[in-house]
């Protein structure tokens, strides 16, 4: 099913000329209204009227998360506050929160893109949509809420937390679509089992899951344990919130990014060079319709690649491969780039191993060390030491085969690795900075 046939199937040529026109408009608008952008453009020696084609995009400077912090709270707003109808912010765990503002039209666009995203994910007006993304400053809850109402689904505004109640409501109200983080969906399944309930027998049929990188293996695990089709959704508050891109249920392979509103690029995270479609690197997004806080070449830190091949669903918008991790989550261990999701996929390949894990990075002398904590469960546990040591050695070997680094496996008791109701924390880096 397609929500907006005209735009979602716009021929590439028309789509690209629309992008070029909107790019030119946004460049002129930010230059005129946001002193930060004027300064950045001037420094880069580029005049907004020179931005005529999509290729000219590369001449514009990048915008970083740090720029948002430096202009905290309202410095990057392109509209006066009397036209801003909603303010969201990131959690600010690593410093001041990044603040974003939406005009009325921004909210309408966001709602439209969420409606497209939900429809692409297979949800429709007959669904009872259980929204367990957090409401509040975090964009997930309200973003999903508005989109779900737009498609005419019955929305249950659960927000995060209070897992027992979530399960009760889900069962009693007959929820059919679940929106939350991938790790929380698994946690719900576990918590249900502890209550003696089988979440697979609930009416849930689709999970629209996002806000953290997850692997294909984890998807399989979720589909089996929760008994749903698990669809990946992508977004970030700096750009919009959820609904920047989504997988279609037809292909379940790559997230269509709504190119009539965003221009995606892939760059080498170290050199900043643009990379061609198909190559993996950091995702950079330029918003071309946003009014409140337009973003020019925002470095998302998310690592992915662009899939340019047409999709079986008929949408013409290009796809992003599922996020492999974040360039700032990327660990450099003894010179090797390691993403937590790579270790996750090794663990998922070993039968019986739990999808919960924690990576502890430390330094002994001059050598980086990596410890991978893995939970033991009834399936992997044995009364014989050699069996458990064999399991450790196997994980260690497969990580070494994949990443070329040796690590130490630490088997830990079940349920001792924290379950997350929001974004999962997978890494503790104790190395001196």
């Amino acid at each position, binding site marked *: 099913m397609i929500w907006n046939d005209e735009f979602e199937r716009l021929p590439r040529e028309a789509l690209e000329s629309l992008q070029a026109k909107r790019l030119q408009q946004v460049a002129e608008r930010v230059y005129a209204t946001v002193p930060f952008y004027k300064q950045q453009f001037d420094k880069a020696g580029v005049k907004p009227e020179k931005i005529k084609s999509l290729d000219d995009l590369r001449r514009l400077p990048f915008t970083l998360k740090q720029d948002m912090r430096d202009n905290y709270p309202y410095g990057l707003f392109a509209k006066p506050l009397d036209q801003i109808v909603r303010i969201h912010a990131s959690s600010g765990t690593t410093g001041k929160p990044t603040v974003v503002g939406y005009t009325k039209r921004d909210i309408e666009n966001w709602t439209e893109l969420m409606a497209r995203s939900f429809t692409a994910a297979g949800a429709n007006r007959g669904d009872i949509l259980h929204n367990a993304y957090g409401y509040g400053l975090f964009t997930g809850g309200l973003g999903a809420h508005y989109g779900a109402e737009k498609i005419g689904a019955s929305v249950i505004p659960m927000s995060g937390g209070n897992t027992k109640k979530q399960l009760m409501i889900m069962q009693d109200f007959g929820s059919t679509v679940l929106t939350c983080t991938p790790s929380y969906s698994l946690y719900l399944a576990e918590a249900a089992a502890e209550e003696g309930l089988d979440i697979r027998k609930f009416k849930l049929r689709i999970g629209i899951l996002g806000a953290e990188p997850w692997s294909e293996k984890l998807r399989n695990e979720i589909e089996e344990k929760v008994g749903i089709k698990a669809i990946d959704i992508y977004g970030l508050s700096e750009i919009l919130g959820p609904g920047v891109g989504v997988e279609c249920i037809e292909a379940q392979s790559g997230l269509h990014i709504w190119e009539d509103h965003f221009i995606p690029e892939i760059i080498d995270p170290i050199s900043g060079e643009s990379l061609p479609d198909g190559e993996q690197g950091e995702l950079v997004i330029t918003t071309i319709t946003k009014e409140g806080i337009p973003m020019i070449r925002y470095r998302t830190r998310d690592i992915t690649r662009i899939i340019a091949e047409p999709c079986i669903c008929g949408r013409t918008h290009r796809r992003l491969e599922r996020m492999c991790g974040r360039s700032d989550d990327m660990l450099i261990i003894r010179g090797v780039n390691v993403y937590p999701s790579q270790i996750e996929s090794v663990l998922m390949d070993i039968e019986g191993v739990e999808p919960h894990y924690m990576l502890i990075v430390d330094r002994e002398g001059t050598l980086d060390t990596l410890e991978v904590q893995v939970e*033991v*469960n*009834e399936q992997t*546990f*044995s*009364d*014989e*030491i050699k069996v*458990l*040591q064999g399991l450790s050695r196997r994980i260690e070997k497969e990580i070494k085969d994949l990443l070329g680094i040796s690590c130490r496996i*630490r*088997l*830990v*008791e*079940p*349920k*001792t690795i924290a379950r997350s109701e929001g974004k999962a924390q997978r890494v503790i880096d104790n190395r001196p900075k």
Partner: protein
Amino acid sequence: MKVEQISIFIENKSGRLAEVARVLGEKGVNIRALSLADTSDFGILRLLVDNTDIAQTTLKENGFTVNKTEVVAVEVPDEPGGLCNILQVLDDAQVNVEYMYAFVERNAGNAVIIFRFDDVDNAIAVLNEKGVSILSGEKLYSL
């Protein structure tokens, strides 16, 4: 003539062993014999208790990973050479021992050796043939 043993996965963290003992004690489960095998990260606690089912359920409810295995309890005279004789019998028949532990009976003056074999049935056949005394679960729990 097999005996049920439960094994528990325990991280090397202070208080975990005490926690196992506490939850079993509170349920009135009596530990007949135990052995702890340890590595630098974790240990496997093996227990013979007077009520295996209650012990297993209780520990699971308290978040422990537990499994049940079948072991063989052999009674030997508590005197020099007692253990050697048994091991010789097993060795002659090429029965492989995964692990073992022992305790001494309070009254009878015998030692009880708990064996974990990879092939339990074959091991029992060999021991029976040589007239070795194998304890039943009932007998063992009531010692």
